């Protein structure tokens, strides 16, 4: 009988999670495991409790904060090998796989400042207290200092396109002068582009916009962004889990490099054409 890997996630159809799962399944198949997915809060259906029979699994992978800490503690106490994707619980010795948030922000700021010649930045943050958000914002603050830029504007985003759009609208209405927006994720980035254009501000000619993370949506918006290969993130998480199942003790964080994807919203290409 094939050994099983359990995945706990809230919405397996969401693009990020779909890609993670794809990576996990890829490695699982190669290493002789089947995958059981518990996707309990999909769009259009009422959320239900987590029902994964974790005891029957060789190990369990949790995507982001899909499992409450109580459940994580329970599985840990039962001796279940666990891995987290894009999440970390400091009190629990569960390893995780993260995209390199710092490297991503460093690349974005470098591009916007050095290639696109922008200096008065606005930053749209993610969810307060969430680890990716925190790392990205901390890196942003450091880069602003490193480049000796004027004090940037900090906008609330909460990883919500509505909140991001609202914050950008407020900034525009306040009459503040800015020439670039760095968004902590690509959805907020795309929302920022839309909001600016709706307010009559030319992107990228007047304001450059860049985001974090990549998906067809970002491509459709022509968004310059830093991309983590999310399928690869899934693969690495699966390998991390399987190695633990096979007896290796692992704690800490496996980091995935990101790469800059240059499209239209930063404006460096337009300058080249001229």
């Amino acid at each position: 009988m094939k050994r099983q890997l359990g995945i706990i996630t809230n919405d397996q159809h969401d693009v990020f999670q779909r890609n993670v799962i794809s990576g996990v399944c890829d490695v699982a198949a190669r290493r002789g495991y089947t995958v059981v997915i518990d996707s309990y809060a999909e769009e259009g259906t009422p959320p239900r409790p987590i029902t994964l029979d974790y005891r029957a699994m060789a190990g369990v992978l949790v995507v982001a904060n899909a499992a409450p800490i109580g459940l994580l503690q329970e599985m840990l106490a039962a001796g279940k090998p666990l891995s987290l994707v894009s999440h970390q619980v400091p009190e629990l010795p569960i390893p995780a796989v993260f995209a390199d948030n710092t490297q991503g922000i460093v690349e974005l700021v470098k591009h916007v400042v050095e290639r696109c010649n922008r200096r008065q930045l606005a930053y749209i943050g993610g969810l307060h207290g969430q680890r990716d958000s925190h790392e990205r914002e901390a890196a942003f603050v450091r880069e602003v200092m490193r480049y000796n830029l004027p004090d940037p504007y900090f906008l609330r985003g909460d990883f919500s396109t509505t909140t991001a759009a609202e914050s950008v609208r407020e900034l525009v209405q306040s009459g503040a002068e800015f020439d670039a927006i760095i968004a902590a994720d690509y959805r907020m980035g795309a929302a920022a582009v839309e909001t600016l254009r709706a307010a009559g501000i030319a992107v990228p000619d007047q304001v450059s916009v860049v985001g974090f993370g990549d998906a067809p949506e970002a491509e459709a918006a022509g968004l310059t962004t830093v991309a983590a290969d999310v399928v690869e993130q899934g693969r690495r998480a699966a390998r991390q889990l399987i190695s633990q199942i096979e007896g290796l003790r692992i704690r800490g964080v496996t980091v995935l490099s990101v790469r800059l994807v240059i499209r239209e919203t930063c404006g460096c290409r337009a300058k080249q054409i001229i």
Partner: protein
Amino acid sequence: MRRSSTDKATHSHLRQHNRQLLLRALYSGLADNRAALAQETGLAKPTVSEVISELIEEGLLVEEGRGQSTEEGGKRPRLLKFVPTARHVIGISLDEERAYGALAILNGQIVAQHYVELAGAQGEAVVDAVLEVINGLIAQLDAPLLCIGIGVSGIVDAEQGLVEVAPHLGWRSVPLAALLNARYGVPIYIAHRTELAAMAQFVYGPTNGINSLAMVLVGTGVGVGLVINGAIYHGGGEIGHLFLSTPRPGNGHEDRLEARLGWVAVRQRAESLRREYPGSRLPGEGERLTYLHIRHAAANGDPAALALLDELSGYLAHIFAWIIGLLRPDHMALAGPITNLGTMLLDRTVERTQHLILPALTQHITYSLADAPNLVALGAVAHALQRELGLV
């Protein structure tokens, strides 16, 4: 004739030496076929063929296509290509805050990273953290693991693979290489962090055509790493406790390099300068201060920050001058958190160094800020590659 153990050792050393010679020639593009390799390395053709066959069998080389025939005509030689993805190497940096590891292929390119926060761990718990980092990277292996390099602070015996003392880790006489070799079955190369950082800058930094490099690393303490004739000079560099000038009676500690350049001292000095210059933009007591804050303030003309930068460059210039006078390295690099002060610091330091020492001595020296992230881990990879395959 009976073979003595010395004979055996010599024979395997010779084989290792020949392998490394050939790999290095191929890797650096000096030759790409058997005949050219024989010519380049001076080894006999049968020896070359034998070693090449071995390397092909191990997957480190492939034959790909045919090259030009020689001037005399005749058969076109089979081209040999080095396969960087044939093996993985792990490079680990162990500092007070965390154990960080990089997984690299044979050209030094990093393909995965893993870290574990130490959170004040001591003794055995630190060894566990190192194991967890290695395991985290082993989980991501795509090819067999060749060897592991590790950089540690403290007194390190690189030859024995022993950490004699690392006070901040609570380590005393830890046979780290033997321990890890027993667990993972691959060669383990231990060295001091600063030496490895110097090696990383030598191999991967803006340092073409140099033979020697001296690196001054300034963070909590002050240390020097040396690469001489392309290899790490082990064991040196513990200069933090040395004096800049003869201490006045009663001033036992003030003039030690660490007491001038170590972060604790810098922070204290920043605070007193901030009080000396009312209106200074430097963060005050209770507020968070980092090198980046100082840099930012200095870039905006803050007098306290500029005065601090000036003082620090003065101390560094003394260190640079002594090293140049002693070693005449081709290149001097500055590393550690202090590099967050940026080129302003390096430029001022170089300027002042040139005033301290005979101009003829500094004429051809080049300088750099070694501020790449993960310098120590990169250096651990480079060092391990050099020792194991002679590649670097």
